[in-house]
């Protein structure tokens, strides 16, 4: 599956400055493995040492937060847009 991954400003420096990169995989976890293989500096910024999603990162598959889907096992389809955003305060 080919998906588009949108990166927040503070992670772009780890991906050659790109705001958006294409990646492959059938789950979010596989998409992240593909990304970190190509951009090793992204590694600690997406998944923590225990293999879970980084505490201060929110990841959305077409606008739905994957923590309420199947987290890193969430399936992706061709053309899905994956957005990565830092956890910040609202209100």
């Amino acid at each position, binding site marked *: 599956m080919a998906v588009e991954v949108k990166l927040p400003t503070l992670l772009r420096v780890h991906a050659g400055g790109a705001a958006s990169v294409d990646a492959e995989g059938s789950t979010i976890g596989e998409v992240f493995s593909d990304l970190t293989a190509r951009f090793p500096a992204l590694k600690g910024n997406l998944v923590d040492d225990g293999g879970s999603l980084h*505490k201060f990162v929110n990841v959305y598959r077409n606008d739905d937060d994957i923590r309420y889907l199947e987290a890193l096992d969430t399936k992706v389809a061709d053309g899905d847009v994956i957005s990565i*955003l830092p956890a910040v305060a609202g209100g």
Partner: protein
Amino acid sequence: MTRHETILGVIGDTPLVGIHALSPNPDVRIYAKLEGQNPGGSSKDRIALTMIDLAEREGTLARGDTILEPSSGNTGIGLALVAKLRGYRLRVVMPENVSIERRQLLEIFGAEVIASPGEEGSNGAIRLAEKLSADEPSLKLLFQYGNPANPLAHYEGTGPEIWRDCPELDVFVAGLGTSGTLMGVGRFLKEQNPAVKVVAVEPPAGELIAALRSLDDGFIPPIFDPAVLDGKSIVRARESVEWLRRLLDECGIFAGVSSGAAVAGAVKEAEKLESGTVVTLLPDGGWKYLSSGAWTDDLDVVADRATKINYW
């Protein structure tokens, strides 16, 4: 009850109004709770009153004290209203790029406004308030993000009102913000009926905060318990404004920008149901956003403005 001895008695007990015209399915009804009907103009009047009540009861707040609070506006306005009647001074730390009307209202109510850097968003306001509080320990920081009185106001007020007015609801949708509304209402509704689904919508706030240097500068409100939610999704600025306009055009409701996002979320949940009832909460009225051009300017212009000015 329509007779009150002070304006504070008017806080809460807001109306629940059908916005069925916006439902994609005639068998799914959508109701909106109009929090803009509160006297300070938003749902935050509830938490302002509860936070001050609780602090007074615990003896941490005494007449003449100065309250300090980080707020993008509405909590500050609610606190300014309660502080005025209860005899407190108030300092609000607010990002400099919020709508002009928020600052005007705070000044009218007599609050002192301290500007925090706009590009740091609410995170920056929180950080500055914590620093000011450490420098000057006599200031009373109520801290809506971590104060149990915030969800409590909704657990004891907003939630029971919704259950009283609409016990048949299937889904409750609200903006995330501090998470106080979703935590309090969500917990109360699930206790009454565990089958009720609780869904959060949020603006793409992380995109607006250009000054975030590291992910570890991120912030999750201490009152947020992810287990209360069944789903969470992003609503973009453009989509929020589109629904905000339909809310006015088709339902005659003049609400704030974040209400557009709440309605967008409610409509998405309505699409998933064969039949049933969705309830959403509209945090404030449209008055504080007239300068945003949300109803009058070109949609692209408004959406672009929403990436620079904090309307949430």
